[in-house]
């Protein structure tokens, strides 16, 4: 499987439609403090089905939607789409090009999509089940998780080993 593109709109500080292409194998993301780098990571965790507010640094789940700025009204909807090629048939689907989306409206309505067709959250998480990827897998790591991994708070270590087993 190869990541192709991440497309974000109305998610956290990304008010406008923003795309990141993943043509290369080793990709660096840089930028000043507070510019939105970790929000990109949150967008990927979110579209993979992350349900815990604390893992996404949120007070409420609705805080993922752009909350406005000096010259901008708050957003009405947050949408993230992650598209990839299913090389090596890692994902349990026959499509060669796959895209997953997650959408949340201000009124609380939420939606998952697989290749732009509405689906359940389970359909997304089942897709990745044996790949080692998941919203809280060993593959998405922030610096503040180092203490958790070493002190194994909440059995996170065992959960990670089971993902890799």
């Amino acid at each position, binding site marked *: *499987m*190869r*990541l192709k593109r991440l497309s974000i709109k109305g998610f*956290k*500080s*990304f*008010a*406008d439609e*923003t*795309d*990141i292409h*993943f*043509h*290369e*194998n*080793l*990709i*660096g*993301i*840089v*930028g*000043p403090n*507070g*510019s*939105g*780098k*970790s929000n*990109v*990571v949150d967008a*990927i965790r979110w579209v993979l089905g992350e349900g815990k507010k604390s893992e996404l640094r949120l007070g409420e789940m609705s805080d993922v939607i752009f909350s*406005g*700025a*000096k*010259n*901008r009204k708050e957003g009405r909807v947050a949408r993230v789409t992650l598209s*990839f090629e299913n090389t090596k048939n*890692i994902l349990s689907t026959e499509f060669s090009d796959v895209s997953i989306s997650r959408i949340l409206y201000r009124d609380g309505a939420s939606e998952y999509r697989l290749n732009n067709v509405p689906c359940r959250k389970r359909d997304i998480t089942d897709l990745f089940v044996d*790949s*080692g*990827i998941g919203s809280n*897998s*060993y*593959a*998405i*790591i*922030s*610096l503040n998780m*180092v*203490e958790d*991994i*070493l*002190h*194994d708070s909440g059995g996170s*270590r065992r959960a*990670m*080993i*089971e*993902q*890799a*087993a």
Partner: protein
Amino acid sequence: ASERFNIALENIRVNFRRVFQSLFSQDDDCDIVLLNNDDPLNANIEIMAKPKGKKPKSISQLSGGEKTLTAASFLFALYLLKPAPFCIFDEVDAPLDDVNVQKFNKIIREFSKDSQFIVITHNKLTMAEVDVLYGVYLKEQGVSGVSAVDFRKYESAELLEES
């Protein structure tokens, strides 16, 4: 189920020691131990690390950088067992000195032959190591944008920001 778990754990232990010794040195020792062995599915999994023959009694005596390298060794050990198609590291290189940043980046470069790695960093050594750099910036107050960046320009771009 517990059979599979035990095999996986044994593999991870072997990988962990190999990666740990490449990030620290050959004189360093580490281990993953199951406490109260009789019930593997519920036992606690302890990580032990003994860099440079020191006798740390527990992980909490390690330094900030040593803790990060130990955690990274464990994660890389999991990756070696089942290589995830992509991995993301968010400022994991921040506590590391230059020598350890370069060792860390060497491992990621190696793994990026099979998988895609996304690394968020403020460290110039890491920026110089990647294939492509994306710069995230505030295009207007409170609104983020992204654009591809040339590393050489980035060095001066940040100082431009200051002017």
